């Protein structure tokens, strides 16, 4: 970095500085933090920021993935290469195992995304984690816009939006009682575009499915879903090959893709800059159940 004549950071540098501050604050004040890591673009940016925050020391906490059993193989392999490179400890909380052990109940109607909640909370409790980093951004969803950087969860893992601690200056209050934990959102002030600018600037490795590729898909409720063993076609639905990419990644059964020819970060930025639909609105089936779907899931303990 050269000399800044006007002593003003670019907005991306300012966001980075704020996120690094949050990572260090949590590592200093909490006994057992963990980084929730899905392998998607936001959590990869999180891992990068954590890497920077503690360099040249290793990241001083493990990462945890909640494996829905329906994760994209490309995402899992990118996850593994990041974990290997950084030498962090990886904890996989499996929804399949949670079903097998009776921690959550698969009634065939509940989405895997929802079954993640019980699985996640159980794993947090099992390991005694007192702080769990999440890659949530306030620009994603209106309930998230209300969330604090340090989001208090009670002993049941619940969020109480009406009773949040005020957050002043950059003075975060990490006080929790026995059995409670804090969710930490270092990317709160980042937007989808910021994430992409950062991925471009830092040349960060992300799963290939974010870039345009040919894929077997079918249309359901106005979304393009990935065809394959995980998907049971309904009457009238047909599989066809299209040129697509993903804006978010999650459970394959619920995460839609968008038609796109963007093969580079630059082209993706151009595409998002003129996009008229949010990433979740375009591609996340789980937010469509009701107007407050995200808020309700968060109250139960979703991240």
């Amino acid at each position: 970095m050269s000399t800044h004549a006007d002593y003003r950071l670019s907005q991306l540098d300012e966001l980075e500085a704020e996120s690094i501050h949050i990572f260090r604050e949590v590592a200093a004040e909490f006994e057992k933090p963990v980084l929730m890591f899905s392998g998607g673009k936001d959590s990869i940016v999180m891992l990068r920021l954590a890497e920077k925050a503690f360099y040249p020391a290793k990241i001083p906490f493990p990462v945890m993935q909640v494996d829905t059993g329906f994760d994209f193989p490309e995402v899992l392999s990118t996850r593994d290469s990041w974990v290997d490179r950084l030498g962090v400890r990886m904890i996989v909380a499996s929804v399949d195992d949670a079903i097998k052990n009776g921690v959550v109940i698969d009634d065939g109607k509940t989405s895997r995304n929802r079954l993640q909640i019980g699985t996640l909370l159980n794993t947090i409790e099992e390991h005694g984690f007192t702080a769990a980093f999440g890659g949530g951004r306030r620009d994603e969803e209106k309930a998230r816009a209300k969330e604090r950087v340090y989001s208090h969860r009670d002993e049941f893992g619940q969020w109480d939006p009406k009773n949040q601690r005020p957050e002043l200056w950059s003075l975060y209050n990490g006080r929790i009682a026995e059995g409670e934990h804090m969710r930490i959102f270092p990317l709160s002030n980042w937007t989808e575009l910021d994430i992409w600018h950062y991925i471009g600037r830092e040349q960060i490795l992300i799963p290939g499915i974010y870039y345009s590729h040919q894929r077997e898909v079918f249309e359901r409720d106005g979304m393009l879903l990935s065809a394959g063993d995980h998907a049971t076609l309904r009457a009238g639905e047909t599989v066809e090959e299209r040129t697509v990419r993903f804006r978010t990644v999650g459970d394959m059964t619920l995460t839609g893709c968008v038609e796109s020819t963007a093969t580079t970060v630059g082209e993706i930025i151009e595409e998002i800059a003129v996009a008229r639909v949010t990433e979740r609105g375009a591609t996340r089936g789980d937010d469509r159940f009701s107007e407050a779907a995200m808020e309700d899931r968060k109250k139960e303990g979703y991240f």
Partner: protein
Amino acid sequence: MDLLRFATAGSVDDGKSTLIGRLLLDSKSIFEDQLEAVERTSEDKGFDYTDLALLTDGLRSEREQGITIDVAYRYFATPNRKFIIADTPGHVQYTRNMVTGASTADLGLVLVDARTGLTEQSRRHAVLLSLLKVPHLVLAVNKMDLVGYDEEVYNKINEEFRTFATKLTIPDLTIIPISALKGDNVVTRSENMSWYEGTSLLHHLENVHVASDRDLIDARFPVQYVIRPKSDDFHDFRGYAGQVAGGVLKPGDDVLVLPSGLTSKVASIELFETSLQEAFPPMSVTVRLEDDLDVSRGDMICRPQNAPTPSQDIDAMVSWMVPEPLRAGRKLSIKHTTRLCRTVVKDVQYRLDVNTLHRDQEAGELGLNEIGRVKLRTTQPLLCDPYEKNRTTGSFILIDEATGVTVGAGMIN
């Protein structure tokens, strides 16, 4: 591109949500699916217009009651700047949220209704923004369309506010007549108010100069975390990680570490794999010193001739945020920069009436949403500056030891 954080304030019906909706809509930061959801809900509720407030009132209970109950953060960008809006509720019982939103703001935006003019609320908001040393203030005189875009109405409010503002510390005040609903002077200059010679609100937000607002003279580096890799490659590495709170640090600088009083020189300043020539606020960096000193979290690195005086006696303005009153004798936790310790309230000197600026010295306590001057004694010395000099080293929060709740915000005198 740089970043501007601003906090909005205004009474319940002054059109704050409409203005934010308008800024988001006109800067193309609202997406079709969000707008459709709001249109659908407005229709379901039987409104005959699209209620843009539904865009910002994200929680169930807010939509039920039709009010904003908590600070929400919104984002939009123009080609010149990215903006973070702290959208703070106007209700008097949520003063603490106003304080929360304003604590990080570069600019405060207060709305008044042109028909009613200044209210107790608008005065209170201006006082709070002034107390929190928000460097720039914009008074937006809204609903000009409902007073026939009358210059006289605007002039009267303008004059009244400027007179009131002389009692406050507002380094930069701008007053703009607008109509959030019709879009007058919001993004573009309005033809309906040709008598107004200033810029549109968005133009002002894009161009207001905030680079000089931070203290670049007094070097302050609160140590947040000590980095010791204990790996073969970095066997002897010892770095002090933190976010620069003031001044400019450079390799070779003589430094003083507080509270130990030990001195050394800056060996290097690092950010990940890069060595930096200098570091200034709000950069998060790792500082290495030439000597192996005992430095830990909570300590402060500064320059030998320019250092805060460590003190256990703190004199501050406190904004109190819970119903159980703050009284002398109460014990609390205090967090100041990276230092967390305990404190006892020695005295509540006065309660400030934020409407009249009257100082009530008989009060003896601060209730919910009240602000007053308080004397504290801490278990460890704090390395602090006056808040008006440095918003980072001059601020603290108070935490209830039993509940863990943040109960107060303090600004050191």
